[in-house]
C-alpha cells in the first residue's frame, strides 16, 4: 500500500505542555483510520498540526511524498486535505448550496460560480441535504449543520478527510445515518481519519485504530488488537483496573 500522509517524529508543545510527543505514523491510500484517546490526549492537536492551524514544533509531515510543514492552512486545503470540526463552522448567511459551492470553488479550484454550484448540488444529494439547498445555513438543525460541514469538505474534493467528532451530539438514529455516510465516502476512495469517542462507530467503520495518550502514540493496529491492548485499557480505565483484568486473565 502506498502512503498518503506520513508523520515522522511530530511534536507540538503549548508552553511546557507537550500536546503531541514524537508521534510517527502513516496513513495509506483508501484507509479509514480511527484516532481514539481520553480527553486531552492530543487528537484534535494532531488534526490541527496536519492542517497547519497550529504548526508542528518539530518533526516532519509529508503528504503525497511532499513535505507540507511551513505551508499555510489555505494552501494545505488546496492540496486536498479537508477537515470537519467539533464545533460546526458554517457561513451562516449563505445558502446551504453556496456554503458547499465555496468549498468546491476555493479548494478544488473550480473557477466559475455556476460550475461550483452544480458540483455542490451533487454533494448535497450525496449527503442528503438537497431538500434544504436554498435555506440559509443558520436555519439548519445541528445534525444538518454537521452534514453541511461534511458536504462542504467533500466538495473540496479531498484526498484526505479528517472527521473530528462528527457524531458528537447526535442521537442513535442520526449516528447510524452518519455511519452509512462515512462508509460511502470511504467507498469513493477518500482516505479518512476519524476522531471519535463512540466505540461503536470506530469499531464499525475503521480498518485501523491508533490510540493517543498524553500526546504519545501508545497503540496502532487492527481494531481487535487495539481493544485488547493492556496499555490502552490502562489509559482509559486506570492501572488498577488493567492489573485486575490481567490477574483475572492469568487465573483462567
Amino acid at each position, binding site marked *: 500500500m502506498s502512503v498518503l500522509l506520513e508523520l515522522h517524529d511530530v511534536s507540538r508543545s503549548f508552553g511546557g505542555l507537550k500536546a503531541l510527543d514524537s508521534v510517527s505514523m502513516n496513513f495509506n491510500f483508501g484507509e479509514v483510520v480511527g484516532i481514539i484517546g481520553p480527553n486531552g490526549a492530543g487528537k484534535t492537536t494532531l488534526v490541527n498540526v496536519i492542517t497547519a492551524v497550529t504548526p508542528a514544533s518539530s518533526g516532519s509531515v509529508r503528504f503525497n511524498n511532499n513535505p507540507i510543514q511551513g505551508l499555510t492552512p489555505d494552501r494545505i*486545503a488546496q492540496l486536498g486535505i479537508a*477537515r470537519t470540526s467539533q464545533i460546526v463552522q458554517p*457561513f451562516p448567511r449563505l445558502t446551504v448550496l453556496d456554503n458547499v459551492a465555496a468549498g468546491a*470553488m476555493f479548494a478544488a479550484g473550480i473557477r466559475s460560480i455556476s460550475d461550483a454550484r452544480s458540483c455542490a448540488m451533487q454533494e448535497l444529494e450525496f449527503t442528503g441535504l438537497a431538500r434544504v439547498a436554498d435555506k440559509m445555513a443558520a436555519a439548519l438543525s445541528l445534525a444538518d449543520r454537521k452534514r453541511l460541514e461534511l458536504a462542504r469538505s467533500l466538495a473540496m474534493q479531498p484526498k484526505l478527510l479528517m472527521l473530528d467528532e462528527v457524531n458528537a451530539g447526535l442521537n442513535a438514529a442520526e449516528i447510524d445515518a452518519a455511519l452509512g455516510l462515512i462508509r460511502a465516502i470511504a467507498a469513493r476512495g477518500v482516505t479518512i481519519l476519524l476522531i471519535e469517542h463512540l466505540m461503536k462507530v470506530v469499531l464499525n467503520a475503521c480498518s485501523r485504530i491508533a490510540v493517543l495518550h498524553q500526546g504519545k502514540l501508545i497503540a496502532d493496529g487492527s481494531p481487535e488488537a487495539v481493544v485488547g491492548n493492556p496499555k490502552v485499557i490502562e489509559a482509559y480505565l486506570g492501572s488498577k483496573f488493567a492489573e485486575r483484568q490481567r490477574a483475572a486473565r492469568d487465573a483462567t
Partner: protein
Amino acid sequence: MSKLVRSKLIGFVTALVFLAVFLLFPWFANNYLLRLGTTMLMYSALALSWNFIGGFAGYPSFATAAFFGLGAYAGGILQNKGIPAPLAWLSAGLLVLIFAVVVGRMILHLKGHYFAIASLVIADVLREVINGMTDLTGGGMGLNLAALKMGVTQQAQFFYFSMLTVAGFALITTLLLDRSRLGFGLRCIEQNEDAAVRIGINTAHFKTAAFVLSSTFVGMAGAVYASWTGYIDPGEAFEVLISVKPIVMTLLGGAGTALGPVYGAFLFLVLEETVWRNFLNIHSGVLGLLVVLLILFLPRGILQASLWSALGRLGLRMIEVIRRQRPQS
C-alpha cells in the same frame, strides 16, 4: 425563485432610471443643486468604496480619510506642476492604490476593533507628514490649486461629470465584484474567517484586494475634490468625518449590497442638507440623532428592510419601554 428574478428586475430598472436622471441632471439644475449633486456623487464614491472592505469583507475600516487626503494632495501637487487635471486624478488614484497595498499588508492581520484603530491612525500620520513637508504641500497654510480656465457653470458641470465618472466606476466595480470569485470569497471571510481559511481561501490576498478596491476610487474622488474646491489644507483633507460618513451611508443603505451605498449616500445628503437648513445651530446634533434612530430601526439598511419588520420592532420597543416604567410608578 421568481420573486428573486422580479426583485433583480426592479433593481435593474431603478438603476437605469437613476442613470438617466444623473446624466440629464445638469441641464435642469441650477448651480446650487449641481453642487449638491456633485457632493452626492462624491459621497456615493466614498460609500461604495467603503462597502468593499466594510460591507463585503466585514472589516471596519476608518482609512477612507487617509485615502481621500492623500489623493487630494497628490492630485493637487501634480496639477500645480502642470499635469492636466484628469491625468493628475488618475495618478493620484494609482498612488493611493500602491499605498493601500503596503498599508493593507501591514494591518489586515488585525481584526475587529484592533483593525479599526489601526486604520483610523493612518489619516493622522499622513496629516502630520503633510503638515511637515511645507515646501511641497504648503503645510498648515494649505495648498492653492491653479484654477481651470472655464466659466463658472461650465466648471460646475465639468466637476459634476468627473465625480459621476468616479462614482460610476466604483459602482461598476461593485456590480462585477458581487458576481465574482473574489466577492464570493470576501463574503465567506465576512461570515466566518476561520472557515474561509479552512476551505482554501488565501485570506491575506483577498482582504488586501478589498482594501485596495476601497482605496483607489476614494483617492481619485479626493483629487477631483481638490481641483473642484481649488484649496485644501491638512485639517480638512484628512478630516475624520470623511471616514465616518461613508460608514453611516453604507449602513443606512445596506452594507454588502451593491446599490445600498448609493441610496444611503442620497438619503444621508438629503438629511444633512435639510437638517442644516432648519436647525442651523444644532444641526450636527439633530443629524446624529436621526442617524442613530435610523440605524436602530433599520439595522440592515433601507434596501434589506421591510416596513412591517420595522414597525414590528418599533412596537416591541414601545412595549418594552412601557413595561419597564410600570414597576417604578
